């Protein structure tokens, strides 16, 4: 019973991490790191909450989150892809700005409420038949719609990257931009579109934290989970399947740490239990030997002679 609950919660907690990591895989395959991921998660959570709070519709909340993510992504993409400025530096600036914006406009809209405002979190969708399978049904098929979407995305992005012409262009843009350019495809345009898609997905992932299961928005609602999704992309070797496995492991770590915190288990101090996902990232980063980094990751593409 406890194990089932833990696993169901792990799947739940891994949802945004998987969506975020897949988004990061998609964009990093074109050679751009989406460093603004933490800020987009936060603004996505904010927009999802605000949209749902004012309309009462989760769908509008999710659309607002996607739109906000895309908007931030277009800003990040324009500066890094077209203006060729440093990705880590630009991303950091956008993350600071995003944190300020989310809190400021929460205040503009709601003032300082005495109790945190809440919305009804996304309902669990019990899939007919499948959800009544013992154990597995409980764990896998009684989740909310975003979880099912994240599972579908794993296969969709895998298919897109490795089975379609678009995927070939995406992968080549990260591995050999000159060749893509020589084939008459606009490198910057491919990269910019990838940034937009990935940011839209990250906005959605962020909304999971606010309306997916908590039903409220706080300033530390993301608390570095965007960065963990970013790390999972690295650890999963820029592969959608790897990202899914990584997301699941971190989901388990996240759920375990919550369970240990609320239980009477006192062998490890709570402070370190909270840090489990971060410590896990460090261990995984150090022990991972074979990284297949996209060749031109983080390098802006500048056509020769047109500086």
């Amino acid at each position: 019973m406890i194990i089932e609950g833990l696993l169901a919660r792990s799947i739940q907690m891994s949802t945004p991490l998987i969506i975020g990591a897949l988004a990061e895989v998609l964009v990093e395959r074109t050679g751009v790191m989406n460093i603004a991921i933490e800020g987009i998660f936060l603004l996505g959570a904010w927009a999802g909450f605000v949209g749902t709070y004012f309309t009462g519709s989760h769908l509008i909340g999710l659309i607002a989150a996607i739109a906000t993510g895309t908007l931030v992504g277009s800003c990040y993409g324009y500066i890094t892809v077209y203006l060729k400025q440093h990705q880590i530096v630009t991303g950091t600036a956008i993350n600071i700005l995003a944190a300020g914006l989310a809190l400021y406009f929460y205040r503009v809209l709601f003032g300082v409420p005495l109790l945190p405002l809440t919305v009804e979190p996304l309902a669990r969708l019990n899939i007919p038949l499948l959800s009544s399978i013992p154990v597995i049904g409980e764990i896998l098929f009684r989740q909310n719609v975003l979880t099912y979407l994240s599972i579908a995305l794993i296969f969709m992005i895998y298919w897109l990257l490795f089975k379609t012409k678009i995927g070939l262009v995406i992968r080549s843009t990260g591995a050999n931009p000159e060749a893509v350019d020589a084939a008459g495809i606009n490198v910057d345009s491919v990269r910019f579109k990838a940034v937009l898609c990935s940011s839209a997905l990250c906005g959605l992932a962020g909304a999971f934290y606010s309306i997916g299961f908590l039903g409220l928005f706080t300033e530390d609602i993301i608390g570095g989970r965007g960065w963990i999704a970013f790390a999972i992309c690295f650890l999963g070797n820029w592969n959608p399947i790897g990202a899914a496995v990584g997301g699941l492991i971190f989901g388990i770590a996240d759920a375990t740490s919550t369970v240990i915190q609320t239980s009477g288990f006192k062998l490890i101090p709570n402070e370190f239990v909270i840090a489990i996902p971060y410590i896990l990232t460090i261990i995984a980063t150090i022990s991972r030997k074979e990284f297949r980094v996209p060749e031109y990751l983080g390098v802006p593409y500048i056509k020769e002679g047109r500086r």
Partner: protein
Amino acid sequence: MRSDRHILLTLFPLYSVIVGLFLSGLMMLFLGQNPLVVYRDILLFAFRDIYNIADIFAKAVPLIFTGLAFGFAYRASLFNIGAQGQFYMGCLASVSCSLYFSFLPKVLLLSICLLSSLIIGGLWGSLIGYAKARFNANEFLLSLMSTYVAIAIMNFLIRGPLIEAKGEYPQTDVIAQSAWIPLLIPHTRMHAGLILALLVAAAAYFILWKTALGFKIRAVGMNRDAARFAGIDERKIFVSVFFISGAFAGLAGFTEVNGIQHMLVQGFNPMIGTEGIGIAILGNAHPLGIVLSALLFGALKVGGALAVQVSNISSSFLGIMEGCVMLSVIISYFIRQRIMTVLEKKRLQEESKVKIL
């Protein structure tokens, strides 16, 4: 003529600061506030009296350190975005020494605190450098995650062994007066840590541009492969850069605990590491630029904090200002590059015309 143009171009970050403040000012309209009034308030408050002016310097001190921490590693093309964690480790080292060695004479006690925060911050940072050198691990991810681990260690110590005698709040006792950094101007918060910060900035300049180590660091930063062929052991550089960078951030812990707070409160100054990155970028990763940008951020903080109190603008507005300023500085680097290319082209064309004639 040419040098005039050059000066105008080097002042570019300054224009972009103004553009950034203008952009963030637009956000105030949403709260029905006149941005001009708010900015006037910020200026008036920041320079209202000697106390506030001194406070600008006091606020700038830790920012100089974290700015140097990022900027120094950036010169080696390494990304230390874990200054926040190294800062907390420095805080812990400094506050522990202040609490446990409070019987020592002032000079000795302060030196111990300074050295311990420097060494602990440096060691915490060099772990990242070591992991990069030994396991080829990604320093960006490691430094990022190391902050969360440092926060866990800090929370644990502050709720456990270091908690105040009353045991009520997650904070330490006030440290003994003998561990306080002396004030430069009495009855203000400007303390001698400012001199330390300026000395350290000078030291960073000296290390980078006047020593063999600095030459190697910059060589690794410009072209890692070329540096390796030239016989530079990049792994040693990774460890030493991260030690120095972490030590800078650790020193911010010393000045904040012993100079300002005189105690350690759980989770205080949570943005200092990120702001350091902004300052390093604004200052073009040059120690002098970092000092000046830190003073600018200090003034925004002092004036902003007070202006926020008199208007109904929330303090998160400071984040918007910092973010907008950083973004417009980044874009200004692009514009400056463009202008320089165009000027260079023109010059070459004119020269070639002269030759043909």
